[in-house]
Structures are given as C-alpha cells and as structure tokens.
C-alpha cells in the first residue's frame, strides 16, 4: 500500500500533463467551445478524485482508462443536471450543443480529432499572436500560468490578462469544433503554423534560463506539428517543412549551451552531441515538404538548418547564403538580415562581410555588435572589443554577458598586439 501511494504521487503529475489537454479537447468537442470552462472543471475534478482514491486504494491497473471512465461519468452527471435545470427551471430550452443523450468515447480517434480541432480553435487570428501562444500553452499543452510566465519572462498577472481576453474570444468565436471543416483548415492553417513556429522559437531562443521549460516548449511544438503532419487533412508541404525545421533545430539543442546556459557558438559545438535520430527525421519531413511547387519561409529555414547539420560540404555556406537571400526577400526581419550577413562573410570573407554588416546599421541590437565583433576579431581587435562591449551593454541575458566577456578576454591576451 505504501509503495502504491508513492507511485500514485509520481504518476499523477505525469498523467496530468499527458491527459489533461486530451480530455479537455474531447469534452470541448462534445459540449462546444462556449463551455470550455465546464469541460476544464470536469477534467480537474477527475484528477482531484484520482489523487484521493488512488492515494487510498492504490493506482488502478489501467490508470488512463480509469480517468476516462470517471470523466465520462462526471460529464453524464453534469449534462443530466444541466438538462434538469434547463427543462424544469428554464422551461425546456434545448441548446444545440448540449445533448445529454449524445454519447461519446475517449478513444484514439476521438482524442486526436478533438486535439487537432482544438489547435485550430486556439489559433484564432482575432487574438494577438502572444495571446495565441499563451492560449496554446495552456489549452493544448497543459502549462500552468506560472510556467507560461516563466517561459515568457513575464509577470503572472500579465499572462492572466492575456489569457482572459483570449479565452473570451475562444468562447465567442463560434468556431465549429465538432468537425474540422475544410474551409476552417484553409483559412486558419497559416495562422496555426505561424503560432506553432513562434511557440518553438520561444523555447529555442528565448532568454529564459529555465532550460527544462525551454526544452518542453520545443517538444510540445513538435508534438503539435506532428499531429498536423500525420493527418491527411492538414499534412501540407508547409506543415512538413515546419516539422523538418523543428527536428533539425532540436537536434542541436544539447550541443548549443553549456550546463549553466552559456551559448556555445556553432563552430565550437561538440558535434557528437547532435541528435542523429532527429536529423534523420528532419530529412524525412524535408523530403515530404518538397513534393509540391510551393516554397514557404519554413522550407527555406528548414533548408538552412539542413545545411547546418550536414557534414561539411565545400559549398555549404554558398547554399546557406542562397537560401538566406531568398528568405530575406520573402520576409524581412533583423535576425534574418544578421544571419544572412554572417553567411555572406563566410562566402566572401570577413572584409566584405564587414562592409555588408555595417550597411544594416542595427546599432540598437546586441546581435549586430556580436556579429561585427566576430568579423573584426581577426584584423582589428580594438574595434572588435568595442563592438563586444556595446553588445554587453545591450544584452539582458547574464549568460550572454559571460560569453561575450570571454571573447573580449581572448582578444586582450593575444600576443604581439
């Protein structure tokens, strides 16, 4: 008995993470999005009951099935209760979404259909992008408000406000979650992909020092895009390209930072830490992505990531520059501009790279100064140090400050200068 109690304590948080969002999605699909709070309450109560009952009786043989049965019964009770209320108190008002006799099952198909529909419901263009990401983390990934705040380096109050507005929109959106319609997919798939792309980036490049949360964000984003790629309705070439990109990037996750969060430059990374399994998956989805004629920014970024993870080819940087050239023509961003310039310097040498970089004039960005520090390091250490110092002033991340200070030290002790 003692042993079982202990294991229920370990098992429940794990199951909660795994099953909470699935069960909520299925119930929402059953009730309609207007009643998302009721769905969440039922699922929360189910877990509460599990913690009570399992603590006393031990963990049942099939814990997931136990959860599903209890949630199902609670739903029936809730609907019965509601019907009594609706019929006796409110004179038999029948709403479309609430039908007590309509039965449902928690099975693999229903769960994956419901979760897929939920992704599209959450990625509502009416919400600001940050709000969509917060909502995705809460409703699709089961993150707590505190965890979301940690990931965004924001106060919990701010996150709560964002979620409040986003949830109101979610309830009032009239999004038909019951059956995912072709039209809804077409009109929202771009938003869905871009939200999941940002969710991944938040994990991959955010300044949060919480390594575990960042890794979680990345793997959640991959899980959700994988759902899109596995469903024939949503497995577009863009979705496959995005998935390939995420696989390639994640393959370097463990190699790109030290244990205390210091960034390791690409050239200094221990390549044996790269995850070959993820690289292979990336290749697989990239091939899938290239079955059409369309080229999205996900294709280009996946291509760039592909060349980064591929054993050195003599023309590697020329390929990367070519892809960055195309990417910057599709969509300008300071990060793309800086990365493109780095690739340019790799192909044409640091001197031409410096000229190209200085034209960007992004003096307010620490990465601009990092790049110039790097490019000047070989020929003009004084200028390089100056740029690194600017970068230190502009960055908020302590680990980046340490990395940059080390670069300055390296330049200072060079003999004969």
């Amino acid at each position, binding site marked *: 008995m003692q042993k079982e109690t202990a294991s229920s304590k370990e098992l429940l948080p794990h199951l909660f993470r795994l099953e909470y969002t699935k069960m909520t999605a299925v119930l929402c699909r059953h009730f309609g999005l207007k009643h998302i709070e009721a769905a969440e309450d039922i699922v929360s109560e189910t877990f509460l009951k599990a913690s009570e009952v399992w603590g006393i009786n031990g963990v049942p043989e099939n814990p997931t099935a136990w959860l599903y049965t209890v949630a199902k019964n609670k739903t029936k009770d809730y609907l019965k209760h509601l019907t009594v209320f609706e019929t006796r108190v409110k004179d038999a008002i029948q709403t479309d979404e609430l039908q007590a006799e309509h039965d449902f099952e928690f099975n693999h198909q229903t769960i994956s259909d419901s979760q897929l529909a939920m992704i599209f419901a959450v990625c509502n263009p009416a919400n600001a992008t940050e709000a969509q990401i917060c909502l995705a983390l809460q409703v699709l990934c089961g993150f707590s408000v505190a965890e979301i705040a940690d990931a965004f380096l924001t106060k919990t109050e701010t996150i709560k406000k964002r979620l409040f507005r986003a949830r109101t929109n979610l309830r009032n959106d009239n999004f038909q979650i019951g059956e995912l319609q072709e039209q809804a997919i077409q009109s929202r798939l771009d938003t869905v992909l871009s939200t999941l792309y940002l969710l991944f980036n938040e994990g991959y490049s955010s300044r949060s020092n919480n390594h575990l949360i960042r890794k979680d964000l990345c793997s959640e984003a991959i899980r959700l895009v994988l759902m899109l790629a596995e469903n024939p309705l949503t497995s577009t070439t863009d979705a496959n390209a995005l998935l390939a990109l995420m696989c390639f990037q994640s393959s370097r996750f463990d190699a790109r930072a030290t244990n205390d969060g210091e960034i390791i430059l690409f050239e200094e990374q221990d390549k044996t830490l790269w995850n070959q399994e993820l690289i292979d998956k990336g290749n697989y989805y990239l091939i899938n992505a290239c079955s059409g004629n369309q080229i999205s920014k996900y294709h280009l970024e996946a291509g760039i990531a592909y060349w980064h993870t591929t054993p050195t080819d003599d023309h590697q940087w*020329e390929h990367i*520059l*070519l892809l*960055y*050239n*195309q990417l*910057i*023509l599709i969509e*300008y961003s300071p990060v*793309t*501009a800086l990365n*493109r*310039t780095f690739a*340019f310097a790799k192909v044409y040498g640091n001197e031409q790279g410096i000229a*190209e970089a200085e*034209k*960007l*004039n992004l003096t307010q960005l620490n990465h601009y100064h990092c790049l110039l520090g790097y490019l000047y390091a070989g020929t003009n250490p004084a200028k390089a140090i100056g740029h690194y110092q600017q970068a230190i002033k502009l960055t908020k991340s302590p680990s980046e400050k340490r990395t940059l200070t080390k670069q300055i030290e390296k330049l200072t002790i060079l003999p004969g200068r």
Partner: protein
Amino acid sequence: MKDFVLIFRLSNPDFKPSPEQMQERMNWLAGIAAQNKLADKGNTLSVGNAKTVKGSNLVTDGPYTEIKEFVSGYIIVKTETIDEAVEFAKSNPIFKIGGTIEVREVLVHKP
C-alpha cells in the same frame, strides 16, 4: 521614405547570365532587402515575347523604341532621398555587362 523605381536596361538581347552573375545580382537584391529598403522585388521582363504598340495599326516586334536598348526588369526601393537610391543602383553588377539603370521617384497622388 519615398519609393523609387530602378529600371534596368540592356542592349544585348542574347545575354544569358552565368550562375555567378545571377548570384551576384541576387546578393545585391538581398542586400537591399537586408536593410529593409526593398519595397518590391519587381520582375524580370521577357525580350523574346515582346511587342511595341504605337497605335491601333502600328505594332512592331520586340521591346525596342528608338535605339536597340530594352528594359530588362525593375525593382522598387524605399529610401529617404533619390541619392540613396542612386547609391543602391551604383553597386548593381549590370554595368559589367554594359547595362544602365534609370532611377525614378514614384509619385503619390493624394486624393
């Protein structure tokens, strides 16, 4: 910021750029985009499939007007002054193959 059209002219209709020349041009264009000063990446215009209409009864083959020089393409940049747009034009590789670039401000008519 104002929009300026850069109009490219060439005189050799049979010119086919080498991969290196194409890459050089692409680098030039992406370099403008990287400064967030590209308003429209424009188009390349066909030389072979071209006619010039000079009236309802007067249509000639080819894009030529008076001299044997033709518009090969255009892009639109957004800069503060025409001088800045001219600086962009100066670094274009078209001069290596005897082309020219005309820079024209896009006029905005306020309603």
